């Protein structure tokens, strides 16, 4: 049994951390946050040159042909530094949607540009009347006379949609869920860019007979589930980075902030609550790993358990994110409430990211419906 990072992953983690520490500190991040686009295309280009944007993409499409394990290493480092660029939207969600559902031609057309940092992607799956029920969109796809297809409907909270060059859009065609590729400059597409509370960008979209291409190399429902599973696994890795940074910052504050003539961390009330947060952090690390194992497993029949294991993991990570982000602010006191101090920014990222595709309640209900993780068994019942 070996759950440690391998040498290549450790090297990736340490190189990236070093880069982010010097090139993505709080001041530089603040600058990006205040810029018009809210992201740095220069940094994105640097990520591309480091090979971060196509880690799990086959070489034939310009990627590094590695696995999601390396993607998770990057997500964790990005979480620690609260990176604002749309890594999740482009390199995880969009890339995997195209990889899993695109034709050879579509993959060749889209993915090399993504790996080179030239193309942003976004997956449009949420709708105003859906909350998290992404499998039943109201957006419709209609076959056009020229053999193509057009989409009509409304999408919201499209992560990375503010800068996306291509959208992967869910819609229903003749009663079946489908995935469609839509260019950002397509006719009949209206995009309203927004800024999330965590500083990341998204967009609401209106589609009116918007021309699209079908992404139908695989079953849309299965692809959508897998894309969300990968997205959630990436979110969990990112959350671990952010949680670790939050707790470290909070513990440091407890050691240095003095009141009544002593560091506030001498109070057992705070020590014990901080210890509980540490235990939650360990749980989050464990379950981020659990989800990573689930999405990378090549064991026979692993696909069946993948979705179940990812949502189980996310329930635990959501809880840790909630507790650690809330308690970090509380333990900092008034300073934790200020925009100037970094702890609140972690809380905002954690609060938003854990509610991106689902939340702890919706996942708990789904996991229960799937039968949970433990087979019922009692020796005296048979």
């Amino acid at each position: 049994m070996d759950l440690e990072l391998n040498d290549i992953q450790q090297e990736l983690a340490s190189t990236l951390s070093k880069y982010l520490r010097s090139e993505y500190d709080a001041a530089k991040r603040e600058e990006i946050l205040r810029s018009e686009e809210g992201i740095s295309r220069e940094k994105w280009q640097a990520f591309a040159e480091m090979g971060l944007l196509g880690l799990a993409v086959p070489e034939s499409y310009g990627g590094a042909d590695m696995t999601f394990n390396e993607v998770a290493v990057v997500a964790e480092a990005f979480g620690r530094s609260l990176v604002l660029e749309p890594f999740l939207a482009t390199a995880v969600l969009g890339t995997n949607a195209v990889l899993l559902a695109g034709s050879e031609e579509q993959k060749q057309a889209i993915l090399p540009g993504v790996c080179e940092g030239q193309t942003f992607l976004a997956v449009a799956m949420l709708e105003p009347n859906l909350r998290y029920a992404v499998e039943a969109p109201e957006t419709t796809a209609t076959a056009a006379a020229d053999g193509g297809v057009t989409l009509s409907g409304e999408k919201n909270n499209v992560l990375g949609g503010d800068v996306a060059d291509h959208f992967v859009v869910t819609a229903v065609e003749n009663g079946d869920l489908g995935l469609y590729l839509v260019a950002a400059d397509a006719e009949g597409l209206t995009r309203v860019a927004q800024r999330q509370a965590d500083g990341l960008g998204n967009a609401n979209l209106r589609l009116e007979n918007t021309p699209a291409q079908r992404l139908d190399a695989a079953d849309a429902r299965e692809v959508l589930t897998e894309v969300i599973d990968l997205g959630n696994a990436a979110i969990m890795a990112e959350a671990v980075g952010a949680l670790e940074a939050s707790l470290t910052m909070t513990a440091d504050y407890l050691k240095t902030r003095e009141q009544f003539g002593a560091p506030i961390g001498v109070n057992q009330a705070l020590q014990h609550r901080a210890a509980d947060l540490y235990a939650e952090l360990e749980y989050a690390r464990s379950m981020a790993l659990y989800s990573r194992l689930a999405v990378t497993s090549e064991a026979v029949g692993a696909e069946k358990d993948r979705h179940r294991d990812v949502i189980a993991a996310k329930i635990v990570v959501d809880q840790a994110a909630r507790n650690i982000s809330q308690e970090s602010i509380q333990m900092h006191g008034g300073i934790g409430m200020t925009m100037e101090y970094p702890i609140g920014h972690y809380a905002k990222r954690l609060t938003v990211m854990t509610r991106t595709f689902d939340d702890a309640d919706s996942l708990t209900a789904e996991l229960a419906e799937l039968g949970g993780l433990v087979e019922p068994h009692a020796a005296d019942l048979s």
Partner: protein
Amino acid sequence: MDTLLNAEEREFAQQMRQFYRTEIPEELRFKVATGQELSKDEMVTSQRILNQHGYAVPNWPVEWGGQDWTPVQRHIWLEEMQLACVPQPLPFNVSMVGPVIATFGSQELKERFLPATANIDIWWSQGFSEPNAGSDLASLKTSAVRDGDKYIVNGQKTWTTLGQYGDWMFNLVRTDPNVKKQAGISFLLIDMKSPGVTVRPIQLIDGGHEVNEVFFDNVEVPVENLVGEENKGWTYAKFLLGNERTGIARIGGSKVNLARAKAYAAVTKTARGTLLDDPLFSARLTKIETELTALEMTQLRILSTQAAGSDKPDPRSSVLKLKGSQLQEDISELLVDVLGPQGLDFVDDRVQGQGLSDLPHGAVDALPAYFNTRKVTIYGGSSEVQRGIISKALLGL
């Protein structure tokens, strides 16, 4: 978690699974699976079978019956044992006094005690806690005063688990009252049949007699019963308690209990279907299942670090104790809540007779187990002690 194991580990797990299910009598395993109390004879029988096959004391040195296993193998040994509902070998013998004697005892003590301890020919009791030395164990007062070739022991121990069966007792005693409290403690073995030893039962809130208080009134103990050096007992105790913490999360046992509560819930009717379909109950159950998985993954991560070559004590094991004990309590509470009103009486048998219908499964043990399980967040370093360790060792507070 089979998929995380390599081929040899998987084969080893299969071998243990097979062994436990074929060699340990089914009626014993059934009793454990359904929360029934085991007699002394049953516990002895089970441990002797394990010992015959070299599975009672794998954590000991090989020359004394231990196994040259990896941390992962030791984990599998314990996990599969709990999953098969095999009564665990007596912890006082196998994970407490045995390793201390094997590590710090003289050759004579090893020869005299270790084989009998592994085979449970001697039933050991633990003499650590005292009425005024609980979490602050080092403040213990039971004294041992050297008098020629013997010690004269006076004082009182408490919370002596299963002391009513005890043949021998390993004790922390104060041999020097004039130094820093940790520096005046020795580790002394006492024959419980010695004149002046009195064992009195303490009834617990579950109604059972699991623990005792033990009084020493001028008990004469030969000096050769001292383990290691005089006044070094605190070092040995810390070593012992470190061993106690591994496996204390009882993940296999929690899985069995959770599966049981879930099975009962599936056959428990409510006004709207079964209890398992009840949204609030199922949400609570599901959350506990995810936490149990998180606990298991945390244990596997710690194991993986050990397997990668680190044999340093890992303070993260305090997280296992803190979370694992809470989860045991949560699961015991779940079972009580499955039973509802019919789980609220202390009864000996679910068959009522006299034309009354049988009580539901679990009605006999759920509530006593719930009350008994309150102990797990108290013993082995209470949750508060664990939080103290975590905040100091892991957060630097």
